């Protein structure tokens, strides 16, 4: 186990997760996380994509991203959360996430994973600023950003095409000095482990 939250744990994105990649990439979770793309992809093309990512990651050096699998406390793989892009000299990191199974949307799982990766990026990687992008119709992420203290920094007009309609791209940022720490944020949000599950804090 790498980082233990209340509803989820962050673990290596290994074979158990990869086996579900085809399902997740072909469902609505990919549509939302990609800003409107509808992947219709085979297992073979997913494998090729994974190989290409691995190759690119090797070439990228210090700016290489970091990917965690997000799993429920009972071990069910739910999706991923990543640092897509690191700029060490500016201590800047971009986050990305996808909860692949829609049954787990809206239950605080993504938020719990987000709090863990924020703490990791500030506490272990010594980042100074985190940022991420979403679209102006992704109400779940917008609400999540607001309650976790991210500031809306830019609205890129008509930057996302989703089912034939143009929507704005939103960019959010969080500075280290604005982050009260995971424990304080858990308290503020009232995040609690589900009954019968042993959620614990990492710090």
């Amino acid at each position, binding site marked *: 186990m790498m980082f233990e939250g209340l509803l989820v744990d962050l673990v290596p994105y290994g074979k158990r997760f990869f086996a579900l990649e085809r399902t997740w990439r072909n469902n609505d979770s990919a549509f939302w996380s990609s800003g409107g793309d509808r992947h219709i992809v085979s297992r073979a093309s997913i494998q090729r994509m994974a190989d290409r990512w691995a190759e690119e990651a090797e070439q990228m050096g210090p700016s290489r991203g970091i990917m965690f699998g997000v799993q429920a406390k009972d071990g069910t793989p739910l999706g991923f959360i990543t640092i897509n892009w690191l700029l060490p*000299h500016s201590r800047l990191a971009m986050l990305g996430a996808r909860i692949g199974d829609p049954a787990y949307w809206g239950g605080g799982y993504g938020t719990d994973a987000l709090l863990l990766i924020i703490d990791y990026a500030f506490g272990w990687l010594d980042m100074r600023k985190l940022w991420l992008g979403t679209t102006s119709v992704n109400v779940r992420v917008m609400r999540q950003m607001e309650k976790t203290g991210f500031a809306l*920094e830019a609205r*890129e*007009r*008509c*930057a996302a*095409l989703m089912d034939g309609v143009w929507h704005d791209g939103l*960019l959010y*940022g969080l500075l280290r000095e604005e982050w009260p720490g995971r424990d304080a944020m858990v308290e503020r949000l009232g995040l609690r482990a589900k009954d019968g599950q042993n959620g614990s804090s990492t710090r």
Partner: protein
Amino acid sequence: MFEGTLVDLVPFEDDYATYLESWMNEEAWFRAHLWDRREPHPEDAVKKYIEKMEKNERAALIGYQTKAGDPIGGLIYDHEWSRVRKVEVTFFTGDSRYEGTDEVLDGLLMLARYCFETRNMHRLDAMSLAFDEARIDALRRAGFVHEGTLRQHIRWDGDYVDVELYGLLEDEWPGYAARIEALGLQASDLEPKPKPEKKLEDEKALDEKILAP
């Protein structure tokens, strides 16, 4: 050659490749490439960069020069995204005498023209360090709309500085001719700089090769 009002767009080769060996180590380059670490670029790195851009089907590095053929710098589009018809644009003023002139503005307008009217883009993304007034002025005059400020985003000479984001949509682009008419561009009439020394040597070597029996 793609002809504009004060400047023309040309392939980034010959003199441009030679000039880039110094341009790529100067302030204007790093302002245009604000994500990059400030690090020296020896000749090999410059050559590799040009090759990389030539091979990249989603990007291009284009030279722009005065009507008299004096190279000014480079225009760049990158990360062209076909599904959303969106592309990132930037420019650098290699010859610093042209900083803030209408030649640079015309270069940016020509890049917008190329992206909208030839490559059929829907949206252009641009960004600037918050203190880069010449770039911001060019973006505004070209019609780009300010869309937000990324706070304390980039490490720059001891500080964390803001980055300003701009966008231009195809339905905001009146067409190159209309934009030019509204702006009334003025040439700065600077004297063309001497050709780079290295280029003269290369030409001499090439001439000798051609003339050799």
